[in-house]
Structure formats: structure tokens, C-alpha cells
């Protein structure tokens, strides 16, 4: 296990913060002025970035980013298939974000899943907090080598590889290396270095 990054402590990036916050403030300001639409150049996302929707936008952006930091096997030109369960709003946002974008040259497709739907053919599966049988879904996905992401306080305990946490009003994510191993997925060290926690094997 030592080849992985050490257990992380909360990462703080002071120099980045100012830049990032000013960017976000700019975005939020643009969203606020959305009706005027003058100060927001081609800001289709304007309304989506308003307060109550920011959380799902951030999660959707993370999901899109995660795809770039995992080595997926299979045809390097084929589409990356993302499944979303019990989070229709996140599914819509991921669909919007990934439209016209590629990850390492691969296009992204998004589809919503219902409880019991097969997870074969997926590269990534996001299971929302309201999923009915998360453990069974995640176990099934692990057998198919799917990168699983949850949004539940006990997401990693239930078997997910990545789980969102709300820390100091920010969406952070934690990673389980044993779960990634079970799915035969390699996560980049950069992903691990940004993670809020990295759970190692026992």
C-alpha cells in the first residue's frame, strides 16, 4: 500500500484560494446579473450557478473531472459512459457540462439509472443520497469495474470508491483505495492529493 499517497489531511491552498474565489464571485455576480445578461458573456450556465444549484453544479463538475484521473481499460476511442442513479438533477447537469467536451479524446455519454438497472458498460456510476439499495448497487458496479461515486455520509462504508462530503461549506471528496483495487481501477496520485481523505487498506 505504501506506493499510494499517504493519508491526506485537509489540503489548504492559500495562493489558489484568492484566484478561485474571485473567479467564483465573478461567476456568481454574473449569475446575479443574469437578467441583464450584458455582463455575462455567453454565460448559459448563469442560472445554474445560482445559490441553490451551485452544489449540484460542483458535484457534476467533479464527476466530469474524475473521468480524467482514472485509467479506464477498453477501446481508447470509445465513449465514456456515466450512469447516474437517484440524482436526476445531477444527471441533467453532467449532461449539460459534458456536451461537446471530451476526456482524453473520448466523448462522454450520460444516462440515468433506476434501482436494479445493470451497470455493465459503465465507466462511472454516481449514486445519489436517496438510492434505495446502495450496497447492492455498488457491489454490482464493483464487479463490473465501474468507478463508483456516492453522496452519503457512509458512502465509503457502503463500498463506494469516491464519496462526496460537505466540509466547511465546501464539497470535498474522499477516496477508498481498497474499493478501487476491488474494481481494478488505478487512480492518479493527483486525484489522491486533492482528496480530503484517502482510505487505505487494513
Amino acid at each position, binding site marked *: 500500500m505504501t506506493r*499510494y*499517497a499517504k*493519508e491526506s*489531511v*485537509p489540503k*489548504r*491552498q*492559500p495562493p*489558489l484560494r484568492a484566484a*478561485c474565489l474571485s*473567479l*467564483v*464571485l*465573478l461567476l456568481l455576480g*454574473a*449569475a*446575479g446579473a443574469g437578467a441583464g445578461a450584458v455582463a455575462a*458573456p*455567453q*454565460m448559459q*450556465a448563469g442560472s445554474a450557478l*445560482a*445559490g*441553490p*444549484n*451551485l*452544489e449540484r453544479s*460542483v458535484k457534476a*463538475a*467533479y464527476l466530469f*473531472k474524475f473521468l*480524467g484521473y482514472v*485509467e479506464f481499460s477498453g477501446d481508447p476511442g470509445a465513449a465514456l459512459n456515466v450512469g447516474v442513479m437517484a440524482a436526476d438533477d445531477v444527471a441533467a447537469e453532467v449532461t449539460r457540462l*459534458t*456536451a461537446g467536451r*471530451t*476526456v*482524453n*479524446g473520448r466523448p462522454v455519454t450520460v444516462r440515468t439509472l433506476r434501482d436494479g438497472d445493470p451497470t455493465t458498460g459503465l465507466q462511472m456510476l454516481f449514486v445519489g*443520497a*436517496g438510492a434505495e439499495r446502495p*450496497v447492492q448497487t455498488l457491489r454490482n458496479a464493483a464487479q463490473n469495474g465501474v468507478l463508483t461515486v456516492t453522496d452519503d*455520509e*457512509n458512502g*465509503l*462504508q457502503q463500498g463506494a470508491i469516491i464519496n462526496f462530503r460537505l466540509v466547511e*461549506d*465546501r*464539497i470535498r471528496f*474522499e477516496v477508498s483505495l481498497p474499493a478501487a483495487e476491488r474494481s481494478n481501477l488505478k487512480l*492518479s*496520485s*493527483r486525484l*489522491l*492529493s*486533492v482528496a*480530503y*481523505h484517502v*482510505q487505505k487498506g*487494513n
Partner: protein
Amino acid sequence: MAPAFCSEPAQPALQADGQSYDIADLSLEQLNNVVITSVSRQEERLANAAASIFIIGAADIRRSGARSLPEALRLAPNLQVARQNARDYSVTSRGFNGQFANKLLVLIDGRSIYSPLFSGVLWDAQDVVMDDIDRIEVISGPGATIWGANAVNGVINIITRSAKDTQGGLATFSAGNRDRDATVRYGGTLQSGGHYRVYGRVVDVDDAERAGGMADGTGLRRRQAGFRADWDRPLGGLTVSGDIYGVDLAQPGRPDAALSGANLIARVTRKLTDDSDLRVQLVLDHVERNQPLAFIERLDVVDLDAQHSLRVGGRHNITWGGGYRYAQDRLTPSLVYGFIPADRSLHWGSLFAQDEWSLRDDLRLTVGAKVEHNNYTGAEYLPNVRLAWQPEPTQLLWTSLSRTVRAPSRYDRDYRSPATPVIVGNVPRYGIGGGPDFQSETARVAELGYRMQPAPAWSYSATLFYADYDRLRTQEPNVNGPAYSGLRQVANGAAGTNRGIEMWARWQAMPSWRLNGGLTLQRVRTHLKEGSGDSGGVLGVATSDPNHQWQLRSSHDLPRDMQLDWTLRYTGALVRPAVPSYYELDAQWLWKARRNIDVALIGQNLLHPYHAEFGAAPGRSVVQRSVVLKLTVRF
């Protein structure tokens, strides 16, 4: 730190597609730093709860400037909080507030903090690191089927964050004209893979003043330390936490009184299968209070609780469990009153089961009951039935019927005043004594609630309630003659009703501006039952409840990493002791000066130099305007 890969994968190739700024263009580090102001998580959590639940989130507490639990509870529109003096509060929901309010159950991380002396909470003994609170769930209305007797009018669940989410160091210093406090907390990882945090905290609260300007001798000095450790296990977890504290309670014209205590909680959760969860919890609690003008008490509590939830056939969510609580106290008569017997072992055993049955996809019926056994009245039955209709995820209509009781406390049965009675013919003649026949107070409650989120930017909730109380506590003249030695004794001589409505709404007026409003209207009516000779209804008959209260809270994110929050609140007049209605304003201006440093200027009760919230004039204490400077450093 050895990288897992020899070469980093390339940055995801982005085709900007003409959108110059989009959230998908932010890096992982930048996403890590986007501040989420939404409350959707909290709202999801309560979206389908068929009860009147208000959640005070961590951000709400931080932005309010509240530095103690009772002050934070003011944020819940469905609670009535009245500050008696510098350290004592009366907190209730749905009426029946009093100096020793006794119809509300309060838990800190699953540890019940009610006192078996009077089935209420002594707030001067309770403190937590405010920054470590994840949320406070406030349920108004009966919660007895799950939480047991004493959850008559409501339940407050104070939930602290997992040690996993409080890593690193935190130091806060507050200094104001009425109180000062300092807290240091540090969180790290354990060899075994778990996480821990430890903290130390000191609080210094000045005496309040009486209306005439004289100090009332109700300040306190607290020293408290504690820890929490969490271990994630496959399909479960283990949590162990504990606190130890010592408090010097100022006394009018006397040396400080001493209060100290310690507690320990161990909790195991385990997901047995997808459809089955188990939780087992053990709580140990020790309190010593040597307050010669009130209680002189040593109390030890052991509380074991287990709960199993399982899903059957996709349509039934069954929760069942049991608990055993044992309390042993040793009481010494204070200068004012005593208890007979002075030492007593109390025990409560309970079993409950509840089924949440999906009749249709949009219709849920919940039926449950608890049987709880106590020393004084034996078995009590606490049933409830709830029906929830959720035509769409953003809309919920629910109704409930419950029966609940407040089981007798030590006060109700064993109280004696004065502590040193007149002896007549070898028989002590007390002025007031607990009632040997005092039975549980009962309440039957009907509720109708509606929650709606018409648009992402706003949501509201309204709950109508009607509660019918019987066997409420009174003081009756002793009719048993010499067989009983108190001139007056505690009895169940009153009955009453409370009807009203609780409403609150949230509106995200702009991305950087949120408004919260809350309103409670109620009519508490109590009457003495036939044959009652209660002398003035000073005990169980409710006379300290406002007919209405409301609050408006504004949260504004300002440029340059500043936040401005204010709360305007109104509380209606109390009848006896008479307290006039009042408006007050609390405000906080916060500047995130650095990534790891916050500076806050907090003003509380800004509209008046002082106002009264509770107690009889002219001797009562008043709440004064206060200004506090607070510094928070994360390291």
C-alpha cells in the same frame, strides 16, 4: 509520498465550446474551494419526514454569532427560548415553558441530557464546541414512539461532526462586554485508520443584572475538555466520544458553587445487508452539582440502547429496538429544599417498533408504539400513527396522531420544602411535598403539516397542531391529614389544550442573499379540574408562553470575503410572571481575512440597553446588550 503512476494522465482535454467561464473548467483544487451556500442537503434530509422538523445547520450557527447552545436554539422558529439570567434558560416547544421546563427531550450525539430531578435540562451544565456541530435537528411535537417519555412537546438532536470532518487545528477567541471564551481543537488520524479530535475550552460569563442594575450572581466560569474518535469499518463504523467539565457557578452574596461532570459515549453502527441496519449505543454520564441554593446532587447514569431497521418486501421499513437506562443519585438537602429518599436508583426499560409502510408510491403510513417502564408508574404506552402524501418530490402533506406522557420525576414524587421542616409530634411538617399519587402527565396530539419547494430558490413549511393535555401538575392542599406531612402536595389537578401553527420559509433572494423567516402562533389554555385547590397554578399550569413569536433572518455574502447576518425577532408577552413583549436584533459581521483566519464582530440584543425575557419583576434578571469580537484561526 510516492506517486501511484509514473506519469500523470493529461489534464482532461476541454473543448471550451465558446463558454468562456464554466464550472467544468475549474480544476479539482478550485472545485475544492467553491463555497456552497445552499441548504439542499438539509432539505433533502427532511424532505420526506412526516413531522415538524427544523434543521439548524452548521453555517446557520456560525453566521448567527451564537456561542452557546441555548443561543443557537433561538434560530429554530419552532422553539421558545427565554433567558432567565446569565446562565439559566427556559427552552420549550409548543408551550409549557417555565423555570424548570419539562416537556422537551434534548440529546447531544445521542446522549440524553435531561435531569431525572425534574425531567428538564439544566443548561448551565451543557456546552459543546460550536464549530464542531454538524446540525441541530429540532422536532416540535411528540417524538415519544422513538425517543420515549419526556419527548412530549419536542425533541432536540444536537449532532456533532465526525472526527473525519474536523481534521487540523482550530482556535477561537471571543471577548465581549458580557462574556469571553476560548477554544482550541485539534483533529488528526490514528494508526488504526480512524480519526480523532481533542478539544479544550474555557468560558467566562459575567453576572447578569437585575432591572435596578445590581449584579444577580448568575455568572459562570467553565473549563471543559473532550474528544471524539471515529473509525470507518466496512459497512459500519465505531464512534467513541467523551467530555469532562468543571464549572464555577456564581452565587449571590456567597462563594461560587461547584458543578462538574464527565460523560462517555460508544456507538457501533453496522449495515447488516442493504435492507438492514443495526445501531448499538452505550452512554455513561456523571454529574456532581453542589449548589446550596438549588440542588446538591451526585448523579450517575448508564444508558444502553439498540435499534435495528430493516426493509421488508420493498414496501415496509421496520424499525424496532429497546433501551435500558439506569440512574443513581445521591441528594443532599440544599438550603431551600430536599428530596426523600435522598438516594434513589431509577430505571427505565423500553421496547418499540415502528413500520413505515408505502401504501402507494406517493403515500406512506407510519404506525408505531413504544412501551416504557419506569419506577413510579410502571408501563406507559406511547403510540403514534402518521400518514404522508408526497405527490412530487418537492411537496409533502402529512398528518399525525400521537399519545405521549411525561413520566414523574424525582421532583413530582420525592420533593420536600423547606429542607428543615417544623417537627410536630415527631412528624416533620413540610410546606410543599411531592405527591405519592402523582401520575404521568398525558398529551394527545394531532398535527397537519405541509412542506413545499415551489422553486429552487424558495421553500416553506407550515404545521397546524392541536394538543390535549391531562393530569397536568398542580399543588393541592393536603387533604390526607397527618398521614402526609406537607401542607401542599404535588398532584395531577389540571388539564389543558394548546393549538397553533408553526411556519417558516427560506428565500434565496439573490445568489448572495438569503432570507429566513419563522412564525409561531399558539393558544395555550389550561384549567384546574373539578376538586382542585391549586393555589395559583404556579407549577404545571402554563402561564409563561407567548401567543406569538416571529423572526426574520438575513444572510448576506458581501464582496471581499465578508458576510453580514442579522436576525430580528419578536416574542409576545408572558402572562405570569408578567413579562412584556419585546423586539430584539442580533447581528454579525464576519470577515474571512485570510484563508485560515476569520474575524467577526457580533452584536446581540442591540435594540435596547436591556430587556426581560423571563421571571417576576422587580427582582428578575435582564438580558443586556452585548458586543463581542471573535477571532477564529485554523491551522
